[in-house]
């Protein structure tokens, strides 16, 4: 049988993650109003990566998944990173 309190905990956890996502949205809007030079874009990307990780780990249940999905996600992200890296290697040193 299902454990009721455990299930309520699962819902509460999702709501806490949602709260964190809203806070991070506020932080990214706030930081974007400050002039930090080149740091602005890196802060924006860093916070976006943090938010995406929360969605993937908790909302998409990656934490509960087996190895196959975790490893294939890493392969996909590594492919994307290589694609971005090689593009900039070309564009910046042309």
């Amino acid at each position: 049988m299902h454990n009721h309190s455990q299930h309520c905990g699962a819902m509460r956890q999702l709501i806490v993650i949602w709260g964190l996502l809203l806070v991070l949205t506020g932080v990214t809007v706030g930081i974007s109003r400050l002039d930090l030079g080149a740091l602005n874009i890196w802060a924006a990307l860093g916070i976006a990566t943090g938010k995406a990780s929360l969605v993937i780990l908790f909302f998409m249940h990656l934490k509960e998944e087996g190895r196959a999905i975790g490893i294939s996600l890493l392969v996909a992200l590594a492919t994307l990173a290589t694609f971005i890296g090689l593009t900039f290697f070309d564009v910046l040193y042309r």
Partner: protein
Amino acid sequence: MNPSAQHQDAEGARLGMWLFLFSELLMFGGLFVVFAVYLQRYPAQFADAGRQLSLFFGTGNTVLLLTSSLTVALAFEALRQNRQRLCQGLLGFTILAAGLFLVNKGLEWHAKFQHDLYPGSQTLRQAPAGQELFFGLYYLTTGLHGLHVIFGGVILSWVLVQVRQGRIIATRPTMLENGALYWHLVDVIWIFIFPLYYLLL
């Protein structure tokens, strides 16, 4: 029917969905790479163009998508707990949020068109080169994302009907689970679109 035909491989179904989502990620990744290259080439023009986007609509739609991502995750949790009515309500809310997102997007695009800001418009042809590139990428990326919002809304509506008819249940949740995964991906992509397009200084 023989037993093997009835066999459901929930993990295999999810893995298939994730593989599809990776292909989506790489497709949007291509658009982000193009954006990054031109941002590096025309930083000032991109910032000028980005400032013309509405922070109000951008932030509002971000909150809307994050909340709808929560409600679809809660809908799955409710199904697991056999709370069908709660599950249906949460799915309904998610679909409503998808519709509202599109209404906002429509209003936003409408305002841009009224300000003569669209690819090939007089204003943009006379503006510095980077600005027309920015708006071209803006319409392409948010348009493709908007198509995904439409598909997501349709898929989740279909899931809602299946839950009502008792075809998606706690022991057979795969359709809701995969529909939710798709919806979360739409959210993840927006998480990157928002700061890159709306928050450039």
